[in-house]
């Protein structure tokens, strides 16, 4: 089962739409609610990251019986230092993002905590690719 969603940078009104849709699909598939929560927390934080930091992006969802793969590709400034970005509390978020209740440098570490596989790569001034896998068993 594959799905694709577009994300616009700065569009906080629709941030979370894809996560909400994925949650509904996983519920219909009778996935354990604890696992659904892990999946949607990862995806929602990642979606907010794209809205907060990039110009635009695409989410690719691939669900099989064993796992869900989520890939977020964005076009934007990229991340110059991934180790630093992964550090709890480090953030480059704008005040607008903070007003939305995010931007405290907790998103990426929280995604990593909830993911079984986590892969982050970035090219400065081009964009970032985040791949997350959560296994159902």
């Amino acid at each position, binding site marked *: 089962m594959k799905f694709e969603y577009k994300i616009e940078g700065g569009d*906080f*009104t629709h*941030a*979370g739409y894809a*996560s*909400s849709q994925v*949650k509904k699909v996983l519920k219909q598939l009778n996935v354990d*609610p604890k696992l659904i*929560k892990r999946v*949607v*927390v990862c995806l*929602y*934080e990642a979606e*907010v990251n794209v809205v907060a930091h990039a110009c635009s992006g695409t989410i690719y969802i691939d669900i099989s019986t064993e796992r869900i793969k989520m890939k977020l590709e964005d076009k934007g400034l990229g991340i110059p230092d991934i180790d630093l970005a992964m550090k709890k509390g480090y953030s480059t978020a704008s005040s607008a993002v903070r007003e*939305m*209740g*995010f931007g*405290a440098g*907790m*998103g990426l570490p*929280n995604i990593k*905590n909830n993911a079984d596989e986590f892969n982050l790569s970035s090219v400065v001034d081009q964009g970032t690719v985040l791949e997350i896998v959560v296994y159902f068993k």
Partner: protein
Amino acid sequence: MAMTLKEVADILDAKVLCGEDHLDYEIDFAFSSDLMSDVLTTQTDRMLLITGLANVQAIRTAEMSDIHCIVFVRNKEVTQPMIDLARENSMVLLQCKNSMFKASGLLYEKGLKPIF
């Protein structure tokens, strides 16, 4: 001690903005925060969110965290799109005059538990 959302509304003298049909839902815990990333790290069921952050992302965060009730403190304005999204997710939204500190204190005194 388990508490119904109706009891929460009474203790805080809160206005029920939506979810009138779910006021018999019981909770044991409460978490007060304006930082949604912090809320997204919680792993607790049957938990109430107390916040002063009134925007659509507060509702989305509750949706992702399986939180069924949000109390907005200091009479923060809750918009129609927030209420629509909450209804879609069978959520209860409460609005009270108290500060976050007072709302938390009143509910703690009546037996709601902290998660940390």
